């Protein structure tokens, strides 16, 4: 299985651990993550306005390159995933947007929608299967209480993201069970951590993140896992009892990858 891999800006800098462990895990699971040659930063946020074209072009180029390779795109960062998946949706369902984009980019072949945008978690669930994953685990997190933190971007808007139930998701919990841990259910797992406001007003994001971490702690979580570098940053700055980790870090450990 070969996938076009879209790392995004943060995985090349502050979130190298997410990038590195994900690549190792993919390799261990027999998938080939082939980085897109000419990926550009997605911009971090999808701008929901009918007249916004330029801010979405970097995603369009990534989609076009992957489609020319006849591969699906795998993402890790929640923000990249959200932007790419929503731009893909626009290209398919918004004829006006597709028309303008094609006029500007002048692709050899317009985007047809064969290439899908798959989050690494969806790859684990739908391609590998959590039951198969469980069999590959050599260092299970037995007895560890792990809290899944989804945040907002992976789940919403649910109509487009279509990953899981937006109010009662279970993909990360199933993942935790597959690596032998015990998922902690807490109500803040799909509440926003405050996101990019961290730049301008850190006190606001800390306040929001503190509630999230306190809730997870209250339900006895040893570790909080997430897919998003910004969520990780915000939750860490809330200074809870347990660690905050990328889900791929736990996966690498569970799979017994030495370099991890």
């Amino acid at each position, binding site marked *: 299985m070969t996938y076009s891999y879209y790392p995004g800006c943060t995985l090349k800098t502050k979130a190298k651990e997410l990038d590195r462990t994900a690549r190792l895990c993919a390799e261990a699971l027999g998938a080939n993550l082939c980085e897109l040659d000419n990926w550009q930063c997605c911009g971090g946020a999808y701008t929901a306005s009918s007249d916004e074209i330029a801010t979405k072009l970097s995603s369009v180029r990534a989609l076009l390159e992957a489609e020319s390779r006849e591969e699906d795109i795998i993402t890790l960062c929640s923000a990249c995933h959200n932007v790419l998946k929503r731009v893909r949706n626009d290209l398919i369902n918004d004829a006006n947007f597709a028309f303008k984009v094609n006029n500007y980019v002048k692709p050899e072949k317009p985007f047809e929608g064969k290439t899908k945008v798959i989050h690494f978690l969806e790859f684990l669930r739908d391609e590998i299967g959590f039951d198969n994953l469980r069999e590959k685990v050599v260092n299970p997190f037995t007895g560890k209480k792990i809290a899944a933190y989804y945040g907002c971007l992976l789940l919403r808007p649910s109509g487009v993201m279509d990953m899981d*139930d937006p*109010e*009662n998701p279970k993909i990360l919990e199933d993942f935790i069970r597959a690596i032998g841990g015990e998922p902690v*259910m*807490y*109500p*803040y797992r799909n*509440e926003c951590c405050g996101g990019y406001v961290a730049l301008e007003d850190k006190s606001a994001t800390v306040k929001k993140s503190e509630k999230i971490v306190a*809730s997870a702690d*209250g*339900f*006895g979580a040893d570790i909080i896992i997430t897919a998003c570098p910004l969520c990780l940053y915000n939750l860490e700055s809330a200074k809870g009892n347990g660690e905050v980790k990328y889900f791929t870090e736990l996966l690498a450990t569970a799979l017994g990858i030495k370099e991890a």
Partner: protein
Amino acid sequence: MQRIGVFVCHCGTNIAATVDVKAVAEALKYEPGVVVSEEYQYMCSEAGQELIKNAIKENALTGVVVCSCSPRMHEATFRKTVAAAGLNPYMLEIANIREQVSWIHKNIEEATEKAIILGRAAIAKVHLNAPLTAGESPVVKRALVIGGGIAGIQTALDIAEAGFEVDIVEKNPTIGGKMTQLDKTFPTLDCAACILTPKMVDCAQNDKIKIYSYSEVSEVKGFVGNFDVTIKRKARYVDENKCTGCGLCTEKCPQKKVPNEFNLGLDNRRAIYIPFAQAVPKIATIDADYCTMLKSGKCGVCSKVCTVGAIDYKQQDTYVNEKYGAIVVATGFNPIKLDKYDEFAYSQSADVITSLELERLMNAAGPNGGTLLRPSDKKHPHRIAFIQCVGSRCDDGKGKSYCSKICCMYTAKHAMLIREKYPDTEVYVFYIDVRTPGKNFDEFYRRAVEEYGVNYIKGMVGKVLPEPDGTLTVRASDLLNGTQLNLSCDLVVLAAAIEPDKSARPLATMLTASMDTNDFFTEAHPKLRPVESPTAGIFLSGACQGPKDIPETVSQASACAAKVIGLLAKNTLKGNPCVAHSDELLCNGCSSCEKVCPYGAISYSDKEFRINGKMVTRRVASVNPAVCQGCGACTVACPSGAMDLRGFSNSQIMAEVDAICKW
């Protein structure tokens, strides 16, 4: 040549505002055969009808065209009018210039032109009309009520009271429906069981009423006055004639872990069970999904303890055929599933419950014996939040677009009862609007606020957060104070939207009764015929037609019974004269028509004909007019043109086509 009168109705300004009615009457005056053409403000009024009658007499009219509202509205009215003037009622045609012209077009010129064309088409058709006489068919003096809730019970009792036989088919082991699960009822706060169970007993004791419990309708044939219904009696593995309802088996059954649907899964029952103490009929039923004996052949405890030998593990589903003159649908409602509204954490916390679950928690016969305790830890809740409109008034693809109507009142009732019984409990109600139209309803709601100190907060809840300490944080906007509340509660009660029972859709197909997009049965007219289905002989009782509270359900149930009694009181029914008939001289005996007839109304016989002076025996079709429903399928299947439909004949429809396409 017919002598035709044309009558154009203004319908006040409904038609006259967009159609130049004078121009229509004037234009149609010169159509062939038209001898009089007039317009009038309200043709359906007494004066309007007199005008038609007089015109018929004065001008010796043989055909009448009324340009007015839809024939579905007033065709019957005007047929009576022309009949009163001595014409055959089927010599009337209606041109629909209201619903299909004035109400949908804005341009007066266009609308007037279309009205004239529709008038011409009706005139063209009336030229080819022939007097028709309806056949008569006998009425079976027995009614079927499908659904044994309060709606079905009331309808059945009223029909029986008038002296007619009536059968109730109930899919559950007992009649009583949703009302048996309720604790108290608004706005009088009398106990539901106290007013319902006597009615259930009346049903059981009335010799005109027969109850088919644990049964379903599996097939419906026939038509008004003559329905032929097959009822499936599901195997309950207990002989109804032997079981005394002593309940010994339900105490001894070793399978104790069956979710008790009567208490909405809040506690368990046995595999053999009687739903509740006042069940009618009071007969045990074995739940085949859980019975060890039926699943593995090992057990047999109930059979051993039964003193009358009523247990029969070999019982099979049986089918009963019965004839009815009228069918009443009373299939009721259910709360919707809340899995798409998990921001309220219904599936994530045991202490988030629905209002119907609260009814059981507060009921003396419920899982806690009537003491209100939280499901999670059986502790007394000190602060309770009610959330209104969960899944109602939604246009988000997840819920129902309509208002469920009953929630505002039952929530006020719950809030009041809780405040009365547990004065130390604070009650909050989060609402969008409080809707309390009904006798003594708003006063009831105001009492909850003013006398009982229930806190009503205008603003919807955005999320319910179960906290580590077992409380529930209710996050909501308080729109009047302009704040966001984070209220710590012990119990959250959701007013789930209600929807028609799932059995309604397949039933509607069997009955060929129409439904709206929400699967509520459609009434024949939203204002004037609210308890009848457009399909003759099918009547609607209770919430299967739309959300209703108990007082309204009972009124509709009695209204429905009155309509059924009206039908059953007749010895014969005038049939539909617009039926198929075969021209035996043209018929070639091919059987094409017989094969497509859904009613088996066509038969073949050998007849002798004199052709060119010789007697020839030929096989020809004939239609039984009492059985034919007039769909016309056979007329199209017929290759020789022998088969035609009265009232909608080939030549009549062709004439309409010609008139419409003329220029």
